[in-house]
């Protein structure tokens, strides 16, 4: 339902554009590690802006804890932007670290990595987006890839670890 409510476009354009960007970055930056870093940075910059649209259009209410936040990212966030759903697993005991698992990922349609790209986290922009978006709602996180289908795994698995919850700086009130 959430996906039906946003303006949608042909995914091929998105997938091929992302692929062309990664390819150009590999040419321009030369080092795979640097490409990983820049993809993460680009994602972060996107995330800090995308969160506004997410909050405006998703109608989700304030999450009570990190568990709920992770569920919302997986079920609502991925659906709203990429049209796919993810699931949340592997919670640690104190509820500050979990995995977001993705079986279907439009970023990697038609993608195959050549041997020269060993070490590339092709989808690193995604982890950046999550980190950036969460930072805007006062959660400092560390997001890392545990499994990657382009590296031969059967799924994509992103570990999201809550480092700290920053108290909100301004004494603003919620409108409602």
């Amino acid at each position, binding site marked *: 339902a959430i996906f039906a409510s946003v303006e*949608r476009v042909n995914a091929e*354009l998105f997938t091929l*554009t992302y692929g062309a960007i990664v390819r*150009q970055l590999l040419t321009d930056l030369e080092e795979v590690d640097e490409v990983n870093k820049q993809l993460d940075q680009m994602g972060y910059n996107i995330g800090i802006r*995308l969160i506004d649209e997410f909050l405006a259009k998703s109608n989700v209410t304030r999450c009570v804890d990190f568990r709920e936040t992770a569920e919302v990212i997986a079920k609502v966030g991925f659906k709203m932007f990429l049209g796919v759903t993810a699931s949340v697993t592997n919670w640690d005991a104190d509820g500050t670290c979990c995995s977001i698992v993705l079986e279907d990922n439009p970023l990697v349609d038609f993608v195959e990595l050549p041997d020269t790209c060993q070490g590339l986290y092709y989808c690193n922009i995604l982890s950046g987006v999550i980190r950036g978006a969460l930072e805007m709602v006062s959660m400092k996180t560390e997001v890392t890839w545990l499994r990657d289908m382009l590296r031969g795994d059967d799924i994509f698995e992103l570990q999201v670890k809550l480092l700290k919850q920053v108290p909100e700086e301004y004494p603003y009130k919620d409108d409602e």
Partner: protein
Amino acid sequence: MGREVSESCVESLLIEMVSSYCNRFYADKPELAARRIEAIGYQVGHQLSERYTMERPRFIDHLEAIKFICKDFWSEIFKKQIDNLKTNHRGTFVLQDNRFRWLSRMSIESSPETTGSSQDGEDKAAQAMSMHLYFPCGIIRGALSNLGIPCAVSADISHLPACSFVIRIKA
């Protein structure tokens, strides 16, 4: 119906790609940044036109290929056709989109920075916007090149929100 993603995914990615190239990788070399952004567009256009023409007979002339860009190709990307096509019949074609989607949000985005002297601000906004045009220009050049038509493509935004793409086919 093929797979879809939200339009904001594409827009965010393009805005961030342009800003990374202009402000981080080649901050002091705008012409290099422009060339890289165009190259990314070229790659995308090349691949898209490959996919969209798979089940079609070859185009018999340049005009037919250009019409394909105006109709089918544009519709796939922007869900609308080019509004006006002009040609001088000597290898130059002007494709006008009366409301070019990728600029509709851009004009709003660049305004907050126009705080300095207004002329300076306008120049900056115009420059930022022109950076965003290298990508669609590259897409058109890539698409036509895949159809065997080498050309140069530039954009004219003097009548916003309309945008005209000028294609000069190389003899």
